[in-house]
C-alpha cells in the first residue's frame, strides 16, 4: 500500500544518506544489513544478492530492488512468490538447483556459526541424505525449483514465517 511504500522509501533514503551523499541510487549490502530486520538473519547476504540488480554483483540494492524485497516478504505475497525467492535465497551457488553443497551451507547457516551448535559431519551427511530422499522427486541428487515448491507448499508455516515487516 501507499503508506508502506512511503515508509520503505523513508527508511531507504535514511540508509542512503548515511552513504556517500545523495547521488548514489544504490545502497550497499553492508548498509542494508544494518536494518534491524536483517541484522540477525543468517541469510542476509543471500537475500541481498538475490534481490540485487547491480551489475557489479556486490549485493547493493536500488530502491526498486528494495521494494521488491519488501514485497516478496510482505504479508500479501503469495506462496508462489515466497517459495520462488526462498529457493533462490537457498541456492547458494546460483546454479538453479539445490545440491548437497547448497544444503550443507544452508544447514550451517541455520545452526549458527559457533562450533557447539554445529552438526558433526556424520550428522550432516545423514541429514542431507534424508532431505534429498524426501524432496528429491526425480532422484537426480538435487532439489530443483518445482520440487522445492512442492515441498514448501505442503508446509503449514512457511508463509507465516517467511516475512519481514518494516
Amino acid at each position: 500500500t501507499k503508506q508502506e511504500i512511503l515508509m520503505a522509501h523513508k527508511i531507504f533514503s535514511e540508509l542512503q544518506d548515511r552513504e556517500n551523499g545523495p547521488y548514489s541510487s544504490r545502497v550497499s549490502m553492508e548498509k542494508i544489513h544494518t536494518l534491524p530486520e536483517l541484522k540477525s538473519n543468517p541469510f542476509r547476504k543471500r537475500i541481498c544478492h538475490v534481490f540485487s540488480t547491480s551489475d557489479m554483483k556486490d549485493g547493493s540494492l536500488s530502491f526498486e530492488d528494495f521494494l521488491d524485497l519488501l514485497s516478496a516478504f510482505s504479508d500479501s505475497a503469495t506462496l508462489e512468490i515466497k517459495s520462488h525467492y526462498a529457493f533462490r535465497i537457498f541456492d547458494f551457488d546460483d546454479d538453479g538447483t539445490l545440491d548437497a553443497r547448497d544444503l550443507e551451507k544452508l544447514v550451517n547457516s541455520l545452526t549458527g556459526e559457533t562450533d557447539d551448535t554445529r552438526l558433526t559431519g556424520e550428522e550432516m551427511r545423514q541429514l542431507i541424505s534424508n532431505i534429498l530422499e524426501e524432496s528429491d522427486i526425480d532422484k537426480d541428487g538435487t532439489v530443483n525449483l518445482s520440487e522445492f515448491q512442492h515441498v514448501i507448499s505442503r508446509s503449514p508455516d512457511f508463509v507465516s514465517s517467511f516475512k519481514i515487516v518494516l
Partner: protein
Amino acid sequence: MPKKSDTARKLEDVGIEIDGDVESAEEDKKAKSKGAKKTAAGKRGKAAASEDGEDEDEDDEPPRGRRAANKKKAAHADEEDSDDDIPQRRCAGNRRRGKVRESGRDGENEKSGRKNRKGGNKKKDGKGKGKDKENDKDSDKDEKKKKNSSGDDSKSDEEEESMSEGEMAKLMEEVEEKKKLIANIRIKPWRMRRRLQVLKEAQQFVDKFEGALGKGKGRKLYAYKVMMMKKWIKFQRDFENFRTSCIPWERKIKEVESHFGSSVASYFIFLRWMYGMNLVLFSLTFGLVVIPEVLMGLPYGSISRKTVPREEQATAMDYSVLTDFNGYCKYSVLFYGYYNNQRTIGFLKFRLPLSYLLVGIGTFGYSLMVVIRTMAKNADVGGGDGEDNEFTFAWKMFTSWDYLIGNAETADNKYASITTSFKESIVDEQENQKDENIHLRRFLRVLANFFITCTLGGSGYLIYFVVKRSQDFANMDNLSWYEKNELEIIMSLLGLVGPMLFETIAELEEYHPRIALKWQLGRIFALFLGNLYTFLLALFDEVNSKLEEEESIKNASLWYIKEYYANYSANNPNDTGTPPPMDPADIIRGPCWETTVGIEFVKLTISDIQVTYLTILIGDFLRALIVRFLNYCWCWDLEAGWPSYGEFDISGNVLGLVFNQGMIWMGAFYAPGLLGINVLRLLTSMYYQCWAVMACNVPHARVFKASKSNNFYMGLLLLILFLSLLPVVYTIMSLPPSFDCGPFSGKQRMFDVIMETIDLDLPAFMGTLFSYVANPGLIIPAVLLMVLAIYYLNSVSEAYKNANMELKKKMQMARDEEKNRRNNKDSTNQVMKDLEDLLPNRSPAPPENSAEKKHDQGGKSPKVKPGSAGGGVHLQKDVSLASANPSARGPVTRAPGPRGPGPLPGQPGPGRGQGPPPRRQ
C-alpha cells in the same frame, strides 16, 4: 521486407526465450510486444505521417507510439499490430495494394517456416481480420501465429473502417485479459521494474481500447461505466490504504515480533482481534440498549427497580459495597435489573425489551459468525495439509527460520533450537525408539492421569462447595472481606495453581515435549471448563432457590402494596383522590436472580483481571528485577540458573483470554456493562502485556510454530462460545424472568417479547405467517432438510478427498515412470515427450523435464513450450510449477536488465536480447 522483419522477430524471440519462457503465454505476448515495439515505435513516427485512411485506433496511435518510444515503455498489442507492418510500409511506400501483396508473401513465408501456424491469412480482407484476430486470441500462446496475424490485422485495418462485431468481442476479451493481468500482477515473481513495465503496458492498452470499444450509441454509456469503475477502484484503493493505516498497534506488535518471533506475536494479534470483536459487541450493546435506556428511560429513583432499597441506602455509597457491585452499582444500567418492562420508551417509541433480547441474541450471532469466518479464512490461508509428514526433514530445513526475528539474542536461541530439532529428528530417525521399561512408564502415565482426574474433580467440588457456602454467607451479616470474595479468590487461585500442578504431574509421564504440551493444554482447558461449569451449576441452584423465594415475595409485595393503599384510604377516608405513590425505596422486592448472576460474572471478571495483572507484575516484573539486580551479589548466576527470567507463556495467556471471553459471553446478557469492562480490560492488557513482554521476558528456548496456532485459538474460542451459549439460551428459553426487575418482568418467558411484538406491532397476516412457520410440521422438515444438506456436503467433500488421493497416486506413478525413463538414459525422443505432455493428469515432472532438456540442447529443439503444451489440459498450478524452473535460472545467468535508458528505439532486439541462440531453425 519480410526478411528484415523476420530477423527482427527472431531476435525478439530470443529475448523472450530468455525471460519469457516461464510465464504464461499471455505474458509472453506482452514481452514480445515490448521488444517489438522498440523496433516499431521509432519508425512509427515517420510512417505515421503518410497514413491517411486509418480508423481511429490507428489515429491516435502515432503520437502514442512516439511517446512510448521516448519513454521506452508501454507497448500495446496495437503497436504490435503495426510492427510487422512498418518495414513493409517503408519499402512499399504508400501503395496499399503493394503492401497487401507483400504482407501476403510475408505470411506465406512464415507459414512455410512454421508448422503450427494455421495461416490462410493474407488474402482475406474484411472479415478476415476478425477471423485472424480470433485465431490469435484463442491460441495466443502461440506467439508466432499471433505475430503473423497481427501483421495483417493492421493492414486490413486500413482497408476496413469499422470493426466487426466479432472483432469487438475479441477486443473486449483482450481488454479483460489485460485487466486480469493488472489485477494479478502482484503475484508474479518478477522484478519490480519489469512489473511496472508490464503493468503500464497493460494499463495503456486498456485505456486505449476501452474507449474505442463501445461504438455507436452504447459508447457513451460504456465510457461512463468505465470511468465510474475506475473511480470506484481508486476509491477502494484509497479506502484500503486508509484502513491499513488505521490498524492499531501495528508497530507495537512488530516490535514484539522482531524480538520474540512470530509465535508470541500471534498472541498479540489474537488479542487485537479479540479487541476488535469486543468493540463491535460493545457498540452494539451500548448503542441499542444502554444509551436509549439512559436517555429515554425513566430516571433513577422513579420506580422500585431503579432505586436502592431503604435498608441499604445508608451503605450504598460505601467503597467496599461498590467494589462488590452492590449498592448504587447494582441499581444501575450496568445490570439487567435496572431496565424497565415498558414496551416502548421515549418519544421515539423505542422498544427496549425487544431490543434487549435481540441484542443479547445478536451478540452470540455476531460472535459465531466472526469466529467461523475467521477460521475459514485461516484454513484457507493455511492451505497445505500438514497431515502427511513425509517432508519432516525438508520442512525443518527450508521453513524453520523465522524471518521476522530481528534480535540477536532471539536469533541465537533460534539457532540453538533449530540445531536441537535437527539432532532430535536425526536421532529419532536412527533409532526407532526402543522402549526399555514400557510397563513402568505405562504405570506412571496411568498414575499421572489418575492424579489429574483427582485434581479436576477436586477443583470442581471445591467450587461447588464455595458457591454453596457463599449462598449461606449471603444471608449473614458482618462478613469479612475474604468471606465475601471467597468464590472469586478460589477460582482464580485454582486457575493459577492448577496448571503448575499439571506440569509437575506431567513430569511423571515422560512424554515427548510436543505431546506433553498438547496434554498440558488439554488439561488446563478441562480444568477451566470444569470450573466454569460447576460455577454455573451452583449458580443455577441458587437461581432456582431464588425463584422459589420470589414466589412468596411476590405475594408479600402485592399484599404489602394493597395494605399500603388500604391503610392510606383508611387513614384519610375523606380523600377521594388517588393516594400519593409509595416511595419506591420502600417496596418489598424480589431477589432478582438475573442481576445476581450478572454481578457474579462481573466480579469474576474483575478478579480475573486483577489476578492476571498481579501475576504479571509479580511473576514477571518482580522476578526480572530481582534477577537483574541481585545478580551482582548472589552466590550463583541468577540469570542463567534457577530463577532466571520468565518466558512468555503463550498457551496459558491464550487460554486465559479465551476463558475470559467465555465469561463475557455468558454474563453479557445479564450485565450489559460487562462488555464495557471487557473492552477496557483488553485495551489495557494490550499495552500492559506488550510492555511486560518487552521489559521482563526472554525469548523462548523451545520454539513454537505460529502456523496453525491461530486456528487453534479460534477453535478454542468457538468451543467456548458454544459452551457459553448453552446456559444463556437455556435461561432465556426456560426460566421465568423475575417479576419486578428487568425488561421482561411480568412475562412468562423472556422470548414472549417477540410474540408480543408480532401480535401487536406487525400486521395480522405476519402473525399467522409466524405461527405457520413455528409449526412443528414445518420445523421438522426444515431440520431434516438441513441434515440432508450436511450429509450431502459431507459426501461431496469425501468424494473430493478421494479424487485428491487418486491424483496423488497418479502423480506418484508418473514420477516413478519419469525416474525409470531417466535411468534408461536419454534415448527418449522428443516426440514421445510431446505426446506425454499432452496427456492429462500428468505429473508436473515431465514438462519441467522437457523444458530442461530444451535448455540442455541449447534451445535447438523444436519449440515445446511447457506452458502452451500443458496449458490446455492442466491446472494452472501445474503449469506454473513445471515451467517456473527456467526463470529461477534466468535472472541469475543473465545480466540484470537494462537500468538506464535502454537502447535506441530504432534498434531491433532490446536489451534483453543476449543469451541462447535463436531457437527457431
